[in-house]
């Protein structure tokens, strides 16, 4: 083959793959994660992605899924690697630094993580789930972040309000708090709460009245448990966001929690989000966990024995 023929062939191939690539992207598929994805030279993937830049959210996701190493020796190895982790691997570099697109994606995720902490929970979500709202002793977001001790305390008026609105002495008291990610509450509430209450109902476990705590920290559940006289308390709280997801929620469950008790008495189910444990499965799982905790009359490390 002459050089010209080779160049012609490559050009035709590039155009065809670009076309294919564009179509794939329009269907919102992450082409790098498909095992049957055509083996594209990395450069094409990069171009294909930027060609579809206008849809901001999905594009960021797609960009993170793309392999942008230039001229990889064997792209299938990189694809395997990508499948194993949501971390930013196989992104190549510009000199000693990240490329502009990687760097921007990183900053966008960092901004999203900050937003998840700084913003409030969507009122509509609370309304829809029929949760009334109370606040810890923290008066602002800034105080919430800098004074963890206040995030576990309530005023007397607040506690009286909770008492007046909630069923006393429930078998299990479930409530929700923003913690360090309001976004996690928005993302998971509508799935985890009904799944959890369904499960409890199936087991014949009577649950108390759920509500929402603004500026809450995990040990706030000790106060709530004591105040309402709950046998088991279960707090669904937003986790500190990372750069992989800002939607992650945890459940902290304790048997007969008391203020000042040891942290080892809490049973934790973490990583509740789309990419981890789906909210509905977590809800169903937590219901069963609560059943076991009630049977064994223990939580945390004691439960593991």
């Amino acid at each position: 083959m002459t050089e010209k023929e080779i160049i012609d062939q490559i050009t035709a191939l590039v155009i065809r793959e670009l076309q294919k690539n564009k179509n794939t992207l329009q269907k919102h598929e992450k082409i790098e994660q498909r095992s049957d994805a055509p083996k594209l030279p990395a450069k094409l993937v990069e171009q294909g992605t930027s060609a579809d830049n206008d849809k901001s959210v999905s594009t960021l996701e797609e960009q993170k899924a793309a392999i942008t190493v230039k001229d990889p020796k064997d792209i299938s190895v990189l694809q395997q690697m990508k499948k194993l982790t949501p971390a930013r691997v196989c992104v190549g570099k510009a000199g000693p630094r990240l490329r502009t697109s990687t760097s921007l994606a990183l900053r966008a995720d960092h901004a999203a993580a900050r937003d998840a902490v700084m913003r409030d929970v969507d009122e509509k979500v609370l309304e829809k789930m029929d949760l009334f709202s109370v606040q810890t002793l923290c008066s602002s977001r800034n105080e919430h972040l800098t004074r963890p001790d206040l995030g576990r305390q309530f005023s007397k008026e607040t506690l009286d309000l909770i008492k007046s609105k909630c069923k006393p002495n429930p078998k299990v008291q479930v409530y929700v708090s923003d913690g360090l990610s309001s976004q996690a509450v928005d993302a998971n509430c509508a799935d985890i709460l009904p799944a959890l209450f369904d499960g409890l109902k199936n087991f014949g476990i009577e649950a108390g009245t759920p509500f929402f705590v603004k500026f809450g920290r995990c040990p706030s559940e000790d106060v709530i448990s004591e105040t309402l006289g709950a046998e088991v308390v279960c707090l669904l709280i937003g986790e500190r966001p990372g750069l992989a997801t800002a939607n992650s929620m945890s459940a902290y469950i304790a048997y007969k929690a008391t203020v000042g008790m040891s942290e080892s008495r809490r049973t934790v189910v973490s990583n509740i989000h789309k990419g981890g444990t789906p909210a509905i499965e977590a809800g169903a799982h937590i219901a069963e966990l609560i059943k076991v905790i009630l049977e064994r009359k223990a939580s945390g490390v004691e439960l593991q024995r």
Partner: protein
Amino acid sequence: METILSIGIDIGTSTTSMVMSRFLFENTASHFTIPRISIIEKRVMYRSKIYLTPFRSDGLIDIEKLKEILSVEYKNAGITPKDIETGAVIITGESSRKENAKLVTETMSMLAGDFVVASAGPDLESIIAGKGSGAYQFSIDNNCAVVNLDIGGGTTNIAAFKSGEITAKGCFNIGGRLITYNNEQRVTYISPSIKPIIEDIGIDIRSGTKITEENIVKICDTMAEVLVQAVTNNNKNHLAFVGADLYSLMETKESACFKQESMPDYICFSGGVAEAIYNPDIDPYQYNDIGIFLARSISKSRLCKDFNIYQAKETIRATVIGAGSYTTRVSGSTISFSESMIFPLKNLPAFVVGESIEKECMEGISDSYKKECKWFMEQTNAEKIIFCFRKVKNPSYNEVCNIAKVVSEAASCNLEENIPLLVLTEDDFAKSLGQILHRFIGNMRKIVCIDGIKVDSNDYVDIGKPLMNGIAIPVVVKTLIYG
């Protein structure tokens, strides 16, 4: 940690063998997340002798002899069927075409242990053999494409793996015992499945005639050429010399068409004939069949010249090891069942619908789902079926409620009273689905919901006894295709 014993029994065209493996299960998740039970180790504990598959004078498989073999081997291994918690009996090659094949596997699976399942089907065998030979794991470890050819007495089972994914499977009527002869080298048996090759090359070989090396080599060369064509798909760098007609005549009827998208990086041979491919210096007449001639033809074919060879970890035992070690999977660890007494459940036909109908289920539309269910029940003529959802990903609570509603409706229309409602999902939502189903149908039926398992249409599902305090459950997905 928990261990269970698994048995594999392979009843092949020419040989029958058994292996016993120990699986080690462990919760590999941290204390702070929901559990994740995985099989962390599989160890082969006992290998039986290789027996010639016993046949009766009427050509059927001799069940009584097989029972004897099993009981002797159990005794040698020092175990009883009670110790066996999972496993599979697979009937393969020409044996699966015998009239009593179904009875044989069912009897053997019952005798072997409580949850030892019967399985048959050329494509399943191909995959099992490829896993047993080590080709599957090699493709993962080396991130490459491997084609495994399991060449037995009656069939050659081909499976292609790419980085641990099955990319193609198929089966050909090519094997070492399709022609046998006595010590005077007079033909005693010619399988009907090899007739197309004999006709194609136009030689005269019949029962009673004396074989000549020249004729045997011709036949074996053609058989090898069919395999070359299968692996290369007539890629223009690897043109094979077999006509399309002959090629399709040699494909095993019930098998898939073997077609890969690209050439493999490695080829691996397993099965009885493979032993002679790796060790060519043995007397070709010693087994009174054409196996070693076939091995020699394959060694000089382009399969061995044009490709890298990965030497199989197991050759003649690949299928039986695959059956013992690679058929049992473990479900996801958030599952739901109303009673553990109902296990094991065996031979459940997988009721699979298309993506669009699954979408309708998520929206709560039940008409076409119920219709398909009715049709499926009629087709399979089964009392129990397992409802499978494959494409539903990350469903919301409402969507799961809708699916529960549709499934419970389909169940009440089509299942007899007291038949348990069994559901399998690929994505992780079985536990909540189970709880919602319970709300819909209460105690009218027992409910089992498991997830994390892939199934295809025409598959059958077996469910064993729950593991690790009921967190997860062993599952076998298989085919039941008797020739």
